[in-house]
């Protein structure tokens, strides 16, 4: 009986669910369309349109102008410097982010909450301030300034200063991504590993790292995007020396101020392209993370 009755009963029960679902959405059709329309319109106007404009402007004088702007020696030097800065900052923040997250989530020590708050500082402080801090520390008039001059070390208006400022600004990304993840995972897998005879390093490599892999990649990705795009802090410490201390964002600004719009947008299109790639990889990583935590 039940076998026969089931197919007939199915549509009615599904209908019932549909009805119930519809009744939960109490807003009339017009309101729904308006809300969705506003959301999409806003996104289009403020995000998609500018992004498209970057590419349109970059190619407004044709592909030749675009590629010649990119092959300009100053542009190439800016791209190189940006890649170098990003590589160093990401590597440094990867190591220290993992260490900080490890310390905070796996051990108990006094001042832990303070440390967690401190990690967020670069997010809450204006990038200009972040840059100025390093000028005050290492600049000619700074605390370590004269000592650095005597030893012929150049930090401000040189690559080390840009690295410092970028590391500072991008520090929270990896640590922030890992702390909640590692907190949720707790320490029991690590405890199991050491009780089975694993050393600290082996526990980290075989147990901890695989568990935080996707979170780590996610953090590195965001950290990298920010490191390449950082303007404020870098602008303060760089000194804008063309071909030497100009990163891509700084180079774009200079070109723009000199009314070289095509060149400015050509370099900007690289950053925009990076953003899009980041978004795609981020989506893939998020999907993987969701799958693993299932």
């Amino acid at each position, binding site marked *: 009986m039940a076998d026969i009755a089931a197919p007939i009963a199915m549509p009615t029960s599904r209908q019932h669910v549909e009805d119930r679902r519809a009744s939960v959405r109490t807003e009339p059709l017009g309101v729904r369309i308006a809300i969705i329309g506003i959301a999409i319109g806003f996104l289009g106007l403020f995000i998609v349109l500018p992004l498209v404009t970057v590419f349109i402007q970059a190619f407004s004088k044709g592909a030749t102008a675009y590629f010649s702007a990119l092959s300009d020696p100053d542009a190439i030097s800016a791209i190189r410097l940006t890649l170098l800065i990003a590589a160093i900052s990401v590597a440094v923040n990867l190591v220290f982010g993992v260490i900080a997250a490890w310390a905070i989530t796996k051990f108990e020590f006094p001042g832990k909450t303070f440390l967690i708050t401190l990690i967020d500082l670069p997010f809450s402080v204006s990038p200009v301030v972040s840059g100025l801090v390093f000028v005050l520390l290492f600049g000619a008039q700074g605390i370590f300034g004269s000592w650095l001059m005597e030893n012929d070390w150049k930090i401000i208006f040189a690559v080390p200063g840009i690295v410092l400022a970028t590391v500072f600004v991008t520090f929270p990304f990896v640590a922030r991504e890992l702390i909640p993840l590692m907190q949720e995972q707790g320490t*029991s*897998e690590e405890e199991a590993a*050491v*009780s089975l005879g694993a050393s600290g390093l082996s526990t980290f490599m075989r147990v901890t790292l695989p568990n935080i892999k996707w979170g780590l990649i996610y953090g590195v990705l965001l950290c990298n995007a920010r490191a390449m795009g950082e303007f404020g802090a870098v602008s303060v410490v760089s000194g804008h020396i063309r071909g030497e201390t100009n990163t891509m964002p700084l180079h774009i600004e200079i070109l723009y101020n000199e009314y070289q719009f095509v060149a400015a947008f050509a370099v900007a299109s690289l950053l925009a392209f990076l953003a899009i790639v980041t978004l795609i990889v981020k989506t893939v990583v998020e999907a993987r993370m969701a799958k*693993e935590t299932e």
Partner: protein
Amino acid sequence: MNIDVKDITKQFGSFSALKNVSLDIKSGELMALLGPSGSGKTTLLRIIAGLEWPDAGQVFFDGRDVLSMTVRSRNVGFVFQHYALFKHMSVFDNVAFGLRVRKEKVSEADIKARVDKLLDLVHIAWLADRYPSQLSGGQRQRVALARALAIEPSVLLLDEPFGALDSKVRKDLRRWLRRLHDELHVTSILVTHDQEEALEVADRVVVMGNGQIEQVGTPAEIYDDPATAFVHDFIGETVMLPVHVQSGAIELNSHGLKLDARGAPEGPANFYARPDDFRITSLNDTHLRGRVKGVRRFGSIRRLDVEIDSKNGVAMIETSFPTGFEPTVGDEIGLYPERYRVFSAPHKN
């Protein structure tokens, strides 16, 4: 491996988890640490494992002081309540983990043979290629056990191993664990808050409360001969009446039923018995006299709620009753405690 725990004390902030705990565990024995949450049983287990360090005291494995040794070198198998399986590894790799990370290299062929044997032992050979997320709770705990046994531990420590499982699986698994222990004879300590589990599985049971050991004994001793009021209260069902010890006797009611105080000191005390310890008698004897207030039957358990006049006013006694005797609410019956204990009452401030 004999385990000797001597005067262990452990504080967490202002909370003392363990107060001067000493315990001997004999080689090859399956010992249960039983107690309510917060009694310190898990802390004691983690100290024996080396996952926690005591503030004072000593732990010996076969006379060797192990507090100076790390977890790594103690060679203990630890089974966690929530399994703590390595999520990103297959069942096989989980079990093989301990063999792969040890200092002396084991060949992959030997590892394969060992792991296959262990998976057979815990009856999950067919799950070798699965991942922990694809297993049921009972299967996960079997993997965790196989993983702990892989390193041929000198001691097997189980922290509420069945706590997260439903009651049917739990019963099956704990009987199976007992059989496994009879096969392997590895010295084992099982932490549990489930008295049925402890009493059924263990050779000896340690009852813990408030960071102290209340009693150590065989399951029968613990149930039949509770050493303290705490143990009587915690294990099985308890009927408790406040009494007063005078010239070595207690008086349960105003009818003059006097019982021996069983060595309890003079002064305020509590009378303890189990519902099964009462015999229903005729009203003519000078026994406890009471009025039936409720009749309950659930499954094989038959219970009466009897209201009696105790020295300190009205009290309720829960008692079992034999088949063939069909009381109704309102009946007057006589009761006689065949077995009971008297513990002196703690002074109330």
